[in-house]
């Protein structure tokens, strides 16, 4: 079930390219609720998803890929 730690392990899940609101429709599973929360935050242009992006930036700066 769980991933093993590895040199390039990342626990982050990339949502880029997903149109969440459209995709989730009326789903109200626990995951859908969390995805909608992210989508709402992005809509309001807060720092949500910046965590993932800054992580990607750090890796790229270090010459690695996520």
């Amino acid at each position, binding site marked *: *079930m*769980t*991933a093993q*730690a*590895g040199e*390039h*392990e*990342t*626990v*982050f*899940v990339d*949502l880029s*390219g*997903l*149109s969440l609101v459209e*995709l989730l429709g009326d789903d*109200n*599973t*626990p*995951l*859908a*609720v*969390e*995805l909608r*929360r*992210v989508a709402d*935050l992005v809509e309001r242009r807060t*720092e*949500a*998803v*910046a*965590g*993932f*992006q800054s*992580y990607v930036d750090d890796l790229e700066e270090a010459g690695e890929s996520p």
Partner: protein
Amino acid sequence: MTAGWPVHGLDVGALRESGWRPTPFRQFVLKVASRCNLSCDYCYMYHLADRGWRSSPRMMSAVVVAKTADRIAEHAARHDLDQVSVILHGGEPLLAGADRLTAVVSTVRAALSPRTRLSAGLQTNGTLLDGPTLDRLVGADIRIAVSLDGTADDHDRHRRDASDRGSHAATVAGLRLLAEEPYRDHFAGLLAVVDVTNDPVDTYESMLEFRPPTVDFLLPHATWASPPDNRDTHPPPAHGRWLATVFDRWYDVPLRETRVRLFSEIIHLILGGNSHSDQVGLSPAATIVVNTDGAVEQIDTLRVAYAGASSTALTVFANDFDESLAHPAVAARQIGLAALSEECLSCPLVRVCGGGHYAHRYRPDTGFRNPSVYCADLAYLIRHIGERVRRDVARLRERVR
């Protein structure tokens, strides 16, 4: 026991010179009563390292309330805060009585400028909740969270009164009132301490009976000097597995039954967001505690580490809250990665885990710059949640192709 890092070794002046700025406090935990009508065996106030409660006044006086309200208003104005929250805490805060509790909230509300909104909450064991008390609390717009450890047997094993009687029946009686109209809008949620000897699904489902808007699970407070009970029979990651089992029960439903704060925060972090929990993530802690005597304390759960660990030596009478922001131990909870051990910094999970609960990192020789005593448990749970979310997001991607 010694303080260690950050009280010794963190130079807040140097941090400021490097450009770091503290995050203002937005949550004020007011210890309105220092005593409790229960004697839970895992309680950090009464059964662990610190005995400071013995010398504290039983109740927060009107003088302390007024000065605390002024300090909160001063802080909110100085930092232009549009919202602050006050959590009425104890001991058992309902021992202070509804009149005193509503007076605390109205005093803080009156001190704040119209620009700052106050959100008020109460964390209680629920045993003293009755209709008249709820009428007063709800009338003052105070949201109420109740500690409930699951089934009657689970709960009564730990949460007992001074005569060694279980408290489940009394807690549930109060909870049944709170969970129904006309009080339900002010039901903030349930809080449970994990006991790995309980059945995780039974524990969770017994909480669902009250349709709580939020459930939170806390790991029992422990440090490297005082590791979790049952480690010999339930070695790590027993707590992680227990929580992962609850996670699966919570996650595998077509319609979300409640928000489980710990799981919700981990998913949010995995998806790239920030945390609002002190159990995971790297967000700056913006909570400060005021004791019944007006002493300003860091998070009171630090009492689990050693006697005096939560002390700042500051008081609302002599010091404003900005002085607390300059305290090394407060700053340590606001500097994210810079507060973590080398072991944490080399871990691929660090931005989600954040080193875990600050109190759980304590080790007498090195202070708080260590991985959590629950490191293996947190890693197990985060990987478990990450794997499940990754698979489901991959399925979503398939749907759009």
